[in-house]
């Protein structure tokens, strides 16, 4: 552990936030015309858009499930979303995030009502400053609701972590890079069910308890922002 405290000074973080504060958020629903549903989400310097198509016919046919539909996610960083230009198309990291996103969203959708069909969720990160999978999922959840997909509830995501031995909420780039733990989660805040959970770093159960508590509080604030964006679509259709 390095002695010089760079990320945390008198309980304040490099961007002036307290340990339990989220970055500034922005959200919007219905941003694209061709997609069945779409959404935008921003947390500080990280922003993503998402589009939903379906339920629609799944090809190839051999992947169809007779009793329920499936939900497929594609997560991708645009080439200009990071410091050094990234090669276009999903990387190994991107594919893994696509996979865990499917796990995060599938359980909230009534997939049993769409045998053989698919719901496709496409997420593109426009700008990456840590927490990209959470921000992308927040946009995706807005897009699903905007598409009119029947769901048990919204999925809201944010990360907690540890910097300089202190649990904090919603890491930004520099904190993520030099931090000790990154803990992204996604959950249904109405039922308290956590549907995405990943963690990198060294910690223990007690600290995890603390960080999860922070992340859950964060998700509740995210859910309010998502709600705001979706409620606005009612006004637009007046």
């Amino acid at each position, binding site marked *: 552990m390095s002695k010089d405290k760079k990320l945390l000074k008198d309980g304040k973080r490099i961007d002036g936030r307290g340990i339990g504060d989220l970055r500034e958020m922005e959200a919007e629903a219905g941003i694209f015309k061709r997609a069945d549903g779409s959404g935008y989400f921003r947390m500080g310097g990280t922003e993503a858009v998402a589009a939903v198509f379906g339920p629609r016919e799944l090809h190839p046919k051999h992947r169809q499930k007779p009793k329920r539909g499936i939900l497929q996610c594609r997560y991708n960083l645009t080439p200009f979303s990071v410091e050094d*230009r990234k090669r276009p198309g999903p990387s190994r990291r991107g594919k893994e995030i696509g996979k865990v996103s499917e796990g995060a969203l599938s359980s909230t959708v009534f997939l049993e009502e769409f045998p053989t069909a698919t719901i496709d969720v496409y997420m593109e990160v426009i700008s990456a400053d840590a927490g990209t999978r959470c921000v992308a999922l927040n946009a995706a959840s807005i897009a699903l609701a905007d598409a009119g997909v029947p769901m048990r509830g919204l999925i809201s995501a944010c990360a907690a972590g540890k910097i300089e031995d202190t649990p904090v909420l919603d890491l930004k780039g520099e904190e993520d890079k030099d931090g000790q733990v990154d803990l992204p989660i996604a959950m249904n805040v109405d039922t308290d069910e956590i549907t995405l959970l990943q963690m990198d770093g060294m910690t223990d159960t007690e600290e995890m308890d603390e960080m999860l508590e922070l992340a859950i509080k964060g998700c509740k604030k995210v859910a309010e922002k998502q709600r705001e964006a979706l409620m606005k679509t009612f006004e637009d259709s007046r």
Partner: protein
Amino acid sequence: MMDITEIEEQAALDKIKSGKRLDGRDLKKFRDIKVETGVAKKAEGSARVTFGDSKVIVGVKFGVGHPFPDTPDEGILMVNAELGPMASPNFESGPPGKEATELSRVIDRGLRESEALPLEDLCIEEGEEVWKVMVDIHILDHDGNLMDASALGAIAALMEAKIPGYEDGKVLREEKHDFKIRRTPIACTVAKVGDRYIIDPSLVEEEIVDGMVTVTWTEEELCSLQKRGNGGFKKDELIEIFELAREKSDELRKIIE
């Protein structure tokens, strides 16, 4: 999604023959155009452009690399376009197909042939290290005429781009140095329908036109041409198209100046 374009295509055709468009536009009118710059915070330059319901985002990144052997003292321009599955129910994931490749290459040629970028100023060490200017076009929502929207986005993103610093093999992105564009090449696509010309074709219209030409003009010169899709043109028709594109590209240039 059920393809209803056949019916809409007939309606679009009938309309154009009567001098109007499905969306009520005149034949030689653009849809509503919006250009916002500085929209991707990690990019050195960026722009989001909407033409009606078509929406593209363009980001410019700088990097350092080896020069090409035949231009050892010049920087490198790279243009790439992604027509991902997000933009349309008919697109699939995977590497860029023919449409995306044509899109990026036409825009590449417009920028290159017009010598819009000062590539000779982008040499760091002759034969060893030069700046790479990487323009990435990302299609978000496809309702036709991606070409003109993307080209406008590319030049708008390049106009606002700042070049980072470079020291001891490290790119210093917090430094922002001037990057001056010499000219503003603007692509304008003119489509022929029977004996009429239209600009800014929508997705449905792109299906019914008898041919399209994308014409790229700088302030003074015509710098790139691409006849797209099926159909053919006579010389006199082309001359008329070049002049129409020139007039219309001036309109687009005003938006980004």
